[in-house]
């Protein structure tokens, strides 16, 4: 049986997360960690949001200054491939690659 509420009110916070929108993507943003300077501009601009931060786990880094900073990563289950991160990245560290099988 479906769960129906009066007025289509959703009482469970953040349940949009269970709806996966990655399949909408035509181009996939791919971060080049050797160029990424950890400025978090992509993280700021991502409208989904599908860009998150996590503690560094051995990814290559461009210089020692950023070695201890959180790295950004893309949640491909939710990234719709809008390309805003690609356009906003100040060091062109995000490539936009066509999704192909």
């Amino acid at each position, binding site marked *: 049986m*479906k769960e*129906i*509420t*009066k*007025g*289509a*009110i*959703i*009482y469970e*916070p953040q*349940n949009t997360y269970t709806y996966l929108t990655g399949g909408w993507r035509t181009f996939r943003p791919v971060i080049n960690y050797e160029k990424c300077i950890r400025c978090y501009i992509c993280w700021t601009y991502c409208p989904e949001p599908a860009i998150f931060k996590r503690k560094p786990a051995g990814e290559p880094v461009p210089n020692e200054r950023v070695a201890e900073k959180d790295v950004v990563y893309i949640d491909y289950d939710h990234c719709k491939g809008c390309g805003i991160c690609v356009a906003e990245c100040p060091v062109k560290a995000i490539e936009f690659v066509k999704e192909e099988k």
Partner: protein
Amino acid sequence: MKKVLKGNEALAYAAKLARPGVVAAYPITPSTTFPEKISEFVANGELDAEFIPVESEHSAMSACIGAAATGVRTVTATASQGLALMHEVLFIASGMRLPIVLAIGNRALSAPINIWCDHQDTISQRDTGWLQFYAESNQEALDLMLIAFKVAEDKRVLLPAMVGIDAFVLTHTMEPVDVPEQGEVDDFLGEYRPEHAYLDPERPITQGSFGYPEHYMEFKYGQWLAMEKAKRVIDEVFEEFARRFGRKYSKISTFGVEDADVVLITMGSMSGTAKEAIRKMREDGLKVGLIKLTVYRPFPKEEMVEAVKNAKVVCVLDRNVSFGFGGAVYGELAAVLNNLPERPKVYDFIIGLGGRDVTRDDIRTVAEMGLKAANGESIPEINWVNVDKEAVEKSEGVMR
């Protein structure tokens, strides 16, 4: 306390007595004196509400929806083009199950521009999922407004409601009105404390959410059920109102239908004129009766069927028209009767558009047409009453 009030003032007094938290409104003739009166109440401290003067009717309804979604009692008013401009947001109010109450000064729609009475504005909002009440007098205006809050906010209903009063005939006409005491209304309405839609940081919710094809229809069926349940709730609230205030309403009121050959159906202020006309016709031995339709949504099917079952002919006086079909009430009544094994004939009379007076003579003309049909004569199914057809046919041309 008895006061002499214009129709809009009666509606505004009712709104004030309901103690709304927010009133967002944009003025439009003939409804303007409603927001004027409300802003006066707020300015002089008689009403502790947020009065939001907005830049359009679309904004008025949108602000009301936003306010109601926080869990506060909300009311506004409009008419005609203003109601038409609200159209798309009216669906949102009902879909979000926000019991907003909307006072209407029933007015014709442009073009040509016309500020006078007919029911085209509210009838055109028939399918927006709002309850619809139509008043015959200023006392009814005040009472139905209070009743509208109670029905709309009932947990079994939770649908918005509009209360229509005829432009100028009621909005700007003074009548003695019994205005209940604040305490009496407080006891009747209680506080609006919704369980479904309100804002609380401790209980984060999403309102106005997305509805995918696998869920949308269930939400619409929910609105359908609420409207069906409203039929009984309205009866209960009418009963309670009568107990508390001594004035008894019903979805339809009948006047001599039991032995009538011809039953007329009216809405709004012309019902009073129709009663007068029928009283005279009864004296002349003509068996004519009347149904006054007070609640148009939900459409009181069962009561209608019961009231017309003994008649030979029903004449619907529609103060609205659906071009290419006929009047709204005519079409709906015909549909309601369709599956009965025996049913009266139903004819439509388009009347009183754009403030054309509906006189006792007009009512008699309609009834006499109905009596002809009752005697087996053939009459047109759709009739335009008191129209200079010759002039129009000269201008438009006629295909024969």
